[in-house]
């Protein structure tokens, strides 16, 4: 038995120095001049939110191609990973992108909950990241999060104001998807509506994946309100709208973050979904010079019209590149952050600027659905110019 005992003793003896010295090769890749700059995209290709995956990558790629995958004399490499609609996978992939690939910026993940898992890690590693479709204001406390296109509050405030001040609605009954995002959007809208003198008289919550809205619509038939405030994801909102009509309900509908009803859905189902007045960050008919060019180029390249899924990453990549132009290719955290904070740009969503807490100030559009030149589209009723979240 002597040999095995010896082995065990040797093994333990060797173990101790390792425990004492701790981690060895833990530093990230170097970021010196001449080496390529790595841009990371962490987005869901699998899981319930996978509809965003490819479009987001398309948007980023389009902007990088316009720049010839070069900025300030350095080449740019794209690193794409699947966050699988799972927060722990997102953290895992973020670690790989930072420590193995050496990215200087990560676009995504998309879902706010997953972002809150990843942002603290990235902050510790001093890596900038950007939301794709808004973040809660509290995520700015980490100091590395570009909140684009706005805080979650701004996804509802303009339409709340429009409903209250322009349309004169006094009462609203609410239906939201029964999960965090749904509650956030609807509760925020209700609060904003009430702060303007309105009243939210009823709130209903439908689980995600509700295909059959009959019970909720039946409840709505018992209610009289000036409008219905609704928010849920695309796969649920379309059945909702269709069933709403076929149940014979006629109350007008307002919707925060109405971008979930994409232009593609509007074009296909316009007749069923018309009647919603929504808060829109981007639609392809937005009347900005940068957008006209963007839409033309996008259509030529991808043979379809762009949605916010592609437009947002396109704009974020533009900001990344513009920041690097300013720092002359220096990707170090403090310099790049400062450069990005100083940006003022004209984008397909209109003019943007960035507040010191890294919250972007972009235009918001309250839109309805109309038939323009034979195609159902989102149509801007009123533009709110770079509104500011009153919470800061």
């Amino acid at each position, binding site marked *: *038995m002597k040999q*095995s005992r010896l082995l065990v003793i040797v093994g333990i003896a060797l173990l101790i120095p390792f425990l004492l010295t701790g981690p060895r090769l833990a530093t990230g890749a170097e970021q010196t001049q001449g080496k390529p700059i790595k841009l990371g995209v962490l987005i869901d*290709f699998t899981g319930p939110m996978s509809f965003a995956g490819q479009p987001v990558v398309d948007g980023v790629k389009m902007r990088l191609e316009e720049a010839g995958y070069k900025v300030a004399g350095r080449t740019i490499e794209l690193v794409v990973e*699947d966050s699988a609609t799972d*927060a722990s996978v997102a953290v895992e992939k973020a670690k790989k992108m930072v420590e193995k690939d050496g990215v200087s910026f990560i676009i995504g993940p998309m879902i706010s*909950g997953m972002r809150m898992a990843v942002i*603290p*890690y990235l902050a510790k590693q001093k890596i900038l990241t950007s939301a794709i479709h808004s973040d809660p204001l509290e995520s700015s406390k980490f100091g590395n999060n570009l909140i684009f296109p706005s805080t979650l509050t701004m996804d509802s405030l303009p339409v709340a104001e429009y409903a209250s001040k322009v349309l004169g609605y006094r009462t609203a009954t609410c239906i939201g998807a029964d999960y965090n995002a749904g509650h956030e959007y609807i509760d925020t809208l209700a609060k904003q509506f009430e702060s303007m003198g309105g009243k939210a008289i009823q709130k209903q919550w439908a689980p995600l994946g509700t295909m059959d809205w009959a019970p909720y619509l039946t409840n709505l038939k018992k209610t009289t309100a000036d409008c219905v405030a609704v928010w849920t994801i695309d796969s649920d909102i379309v059945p909702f709208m269709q069933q709403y009509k076929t149940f014979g309900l006629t109350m007008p509908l307002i919707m925060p973050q109405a971008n979930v009803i994409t232009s593609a859905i509007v074009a296909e189902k316009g007749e069923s979904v018309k009647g919603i007045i929504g808060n829109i960050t981007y639609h392809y008919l937005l009347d900005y010079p940068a957008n006209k060019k963007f839409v033309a180029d996008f259509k030529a390249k991808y043979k379809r019209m762009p949605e916010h899924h592609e437009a947002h990453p396109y704009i974020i990549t533009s900001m990344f590149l513009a920041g690097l132009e300013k720092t002359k290719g220096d990707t170090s955290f403090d310099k790049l952050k400062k450069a990005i904070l100083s940006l003022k740009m004209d984008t397909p969503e209109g003019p943007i600027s960035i507040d010191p807490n890294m919250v972007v100030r972009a235009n918001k559009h309250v839109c309805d659905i109309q038939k323009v030149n034979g195609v159902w589209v989102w149509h801007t009723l009123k533009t709110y110019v770079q509104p500011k979240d009153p919470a800061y």
Partner: protein
Amino acid sequence: MGREPASSEKQGLLKVIRLAPQFLILLLLIFLIPLEPTYVQSLATKILIFAIFAMSLDLLIGYAGIMSLGHAAFFGAAGYGAGILAVRYSIDNIWLGLASGILLATFIAAVFGIIALQARGIYSILITFALGQLLYSLATKWRSVTNGDYGLWGVPLPALGLSGFEWNGTYYYYFVFLAFLVCYLCLYRLVKSPFGKSLQGIREGESRMRALGYNTWLFKYVAFIIAGMFAGVAGVLFAYHSGIITPGDLAVMNSGFVMLMVIAGGIGTIYGAAIGAALIITIQYYAGILTADRWPLILGGVFVLTIMYARAGVGVYFYSLWKRVLVRWKF
């Protein structure tokens, strides 16, 4: 033709050679992994955590013969227990976190076990599935406590209790590794014990065991609780590892995922589950890097192939290969 009796030194050497794969794996885990970059260590930590999780399920499936599609309920519940303690109550002690998580998992297993054992055979799948999903919807709805579907983020690695000690990825890897060793040894001893043997007897012929006077229900119930307890260990370690625990960690997809590991590695062997965990997680990871959007095809394909052609499990397959090598070379 006889062989002279081997000297005790030779016997010692023989034993080492027979255990070579285990030694190699231990050496790899103890010495090689910490040399890798931290994201590899992080992956290794995740593998060890799921190894514990899978081994606990193997106790249930492979020894007690209870098929469960809701095992992730205990995993996730423990994660939430530890997470809530750290985030909502700011209790900065890893041992208290582990205790609260494991206790919660054990309690829920005790409750679920009574319901789950009502059914036989394939119906236990349905019951365990329903129970798991019930807990999942609770985690999603009870937003004030669990933070809903966003998950409870911001879970820190609580203090070890040693003054001046600061956690890092490598230290946590070692911590999880030690936990894995402890769990493995416990489960190994358990299945080799009379209790374990009785369980196997029940799995192979419950009416026979009952005729012999065994309280088969009690045996299965205890096994159910122990399995839930170890799943809880994994759950707490997972919450600390990811820094977040989500309702998805409780859900049927996670239960199915860990069942994949047990099957792929080899049911009824304890070590098989650990190997299965390493296999599945590694494949998922590298498949994901290979193709960001088509990796489930690879994972599903591997799984189907394993069931079709390596039914006993990959771990068992390699182990029997090794055994044949030993016999061939007269070790």
